[in-house]
């Protein structure tokens, strides 16, 4: 079997599951769930250091950035200026150039603000960043992001944290057909089968946070997502049968007694 590679910005990854590190009950729970998920890339947020409580645990003490690729995000940024400031700071922490750009446009539905996202992608790419872009599921906008230098296209399945699964499979398929860039479903998945569907549509990977962190049993769900991504990818590569309206017996019609 030909080796099935998952390459982002010239780096080869074994796992096609990217996980978020937010919303867990504790750092320990987060670290264990990541370990069980098999993810090699995790998203992280940039926030103020707690000056008053110095005993607060640090993410880097639980998830080693030498072993797991940190993908700094711009969560909470509502314009290009804020997003650029955040990612420049992220790079300063320790040389992070692979980043997740996420410029939000509305506090309620958390949809991406695509004009600001496009503008930020252009600037960040010129500054040497490798930009994985959270975007809506619009094929035209995805093309523009690609032309602006994005290193991965990351359309939403549904609003962040909604758990609705892929709302518009057709658009995801169109984006898949038009781009050779890594296509990663980011946001909105609710259960492991949603990840399998994404992979069966031909996506290169999925990014999941809430569905694992807020499941009743996060560790079990981390494993479920790991398996679903593998199963979905294998299913995609296997070439599914054609759908037909009527039945087609699995046992031979001849020799019936």
């Amino acid at each position: 079997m030909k080796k099935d590679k998952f390459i982002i910005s010239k780096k080869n990854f074994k796992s096609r599951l990217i996980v978020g590190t937010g919303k867990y009950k504790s750092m320990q729970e987060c670290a264990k769930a990541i370990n069980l998920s098999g993810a090699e890339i995790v998203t992280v947020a940039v926030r103020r250091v707690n000056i008053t409580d110095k005993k607060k645990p640090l993410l880097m003490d639980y998830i080693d950035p030498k072993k797991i690729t940190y993908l700094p995000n711009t969560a909470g940024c509502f314009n290009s200026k804020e997003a650029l400031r955040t990612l420049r700071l992220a790079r300063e922490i320790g040389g992070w150039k692979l980043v997740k750009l996420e410029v939000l446009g509305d506090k309620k539905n958390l949809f991406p603000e695509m004009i600001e996202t496009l503008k930020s992608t252009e600037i960040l790419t010129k500054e040497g960043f490798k930009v994985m872009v959270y975007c809506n599921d619009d094929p035209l906008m995805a093309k523009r992001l690609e032309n602006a230098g994005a290193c991965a296209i990351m359309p939403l399945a549904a609003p962040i944290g909604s758990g609705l699964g892929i709302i518009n499979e057709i658009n995801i398929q169109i984006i898949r057909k038009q781009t050779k860039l890594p296509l990663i479903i980011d946001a909105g998945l609710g259960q492991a089968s949603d990840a399998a569907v994404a992979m069966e549509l031909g996506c290169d990977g999925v990014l999941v946070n809430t569905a694992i962190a807020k499941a009743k049993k996060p560790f079990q769900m981390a494993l479920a997502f790991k398996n679903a991504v593998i199963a979905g990818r294998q299913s995609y590569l296997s070439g599914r049968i054609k759908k037909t309206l009527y039945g087609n017996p699995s046992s031979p019609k001849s020799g019936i007694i």
Partner: protein
Amino acid sequence: MKKKIKIKLNGKLKAINYNSTLFNIVQKNKIPLTKVAIELNQEIVDKKKLKSINLKNNDKIEIVHFIGGG
């Protein structure tokens, strides 16, 4: 009594000694330098040069790190 100046550190108003450097602030607050980025008045600061940066009245310092996020 030593002369004091007022600065903002991560949004909190602080009175510090006149002639303090950014390095003094980092040291006093036990900031793990390898795990943070520092901004002075919205400009990123080179962490190697903290000792040579003298703070002025009304300076705004932001020290950030990575936390859990999606």
